[in-house]
């Protein structure tokens, strides 16, 4: 338990590890994109997008990402 910033940081770390595991396991990643109705962008989704982008750069053989 911690303050809001620490909780957000822990959640971000967990989310980052999770998406990395999914990509490493070879699962197909379907990115349904940003939510046009949101007033503020999601930092978690930004992180996931960056992770996906970086993983594709570092592992050109990975072809599991689908962006509708």
């Amino acid at each position, binding site marked *: *338990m*911690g*303050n*809001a*910033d*620490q*909780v*957000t*940081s*822990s*959640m*971000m*770390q*967990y*989310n*980052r590890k*999770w*998406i990395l595991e*999914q990509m490493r*396991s*070879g*699962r*197909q*990643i*379907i*990115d*349904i*994109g*940003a*939510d*046009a*109705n*949101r*007033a*503020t*962008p*999601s*930092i*978690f*989704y*930004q*992180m*996931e997008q*960056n*992770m*996906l*982008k*970086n993983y594709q*750069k*570092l592992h050109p053989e990975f*072809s*599991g990402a*689908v962006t*509708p």
Partner: protein
Amino acid sequence: MCSADRPPRSRRPPASLTRPGPQRPTPLVYSRLDKPGSPPQVEQFYVHQDFQGSIDKLSYGGAAAHSYTFDAFGKRRNPNWVNDYNLSELDVTNRWTRLGYTGHEQLDNVRLIHMNGRVQDPMWGRMLSPDPIVGDLEFPQSLNPYSYVRNNPLRYTDPTGYSENDGGWTIDICWGCGSGGSGSFVDLRPYISYQYSLARDYANQFSISSTFLTDDGSVKPEVLAFGGALGCSAVPLCGAGLDVAVIGDPDAALWEKGLSTVSLGAEAVCPSCPNAGPLILAAKTLGKEARAAENVAEGVADAAQASRSGQNAAKGPVVIGETMARVEQAAAKIPGSKILNDMPDF
């Protein structure tokens, strides 16, 4: 105002995955100081912000009462731009607002800036804690987790403390150009509040002639029709026509998507048509909802197809996206799909 901009520190999120959106500073209109006494006096100043949202001046009765200036990374300096700011000059009577650089809270006693998500040291131009968002390999400056807005503070701001935000200050919308390009440009900087980068990217793909006008130079029928339906003859000539035009033009979908992230204030009033401001908002809302619904429908259909034909279809795909409800909605339509919908109780 300042405390309301930050997420509460003691509130614990529920165990299910919640994605707390970053907070952004609310634009200030005035600063008010209640002076004790009998009877109590109230002093009120209007707040003027510069193009990055930094507090620039406080005015009263049409005259500037106080000036604030900051260097590139947010350190206070004298309004003459020459000397360092003497904090002793910032006495209690001058502290009308604690907000300062890019609308964030200035922690003058420790010479730091509270940027909601993190704290920045303007002396070093660095954040005091690392960025939880992993950097983008295409932008090496973003790989330094302590750098402030990719070390480009004159272009970007950081409303959340977590990621930079492109000002996109070059975006103007032409009022009155629909009839042939003789109108004037109105600077919409005060009204554009968030996610400038998308709009800025799409701005390069946009031309007024391709959305307002037909090939022979006349105003498109759907624009005229929208104006007629609203009983406003000036609609094709002002910004309200922009959204209508792009909604009716499939080729302009990207621009419309970019525009949908731009919010205009209710004070956006067309000089020739006082109804234009509300019309812009209404058209934007309609277009945004239609586009969002269309995106989800198309995306889910494509994703389902891709899932069926994908090499790892047996494992089932992972669905990611912005806003948990959308992700859940999409995943429900894809058999065997997986999402991150549980999280330990941190």
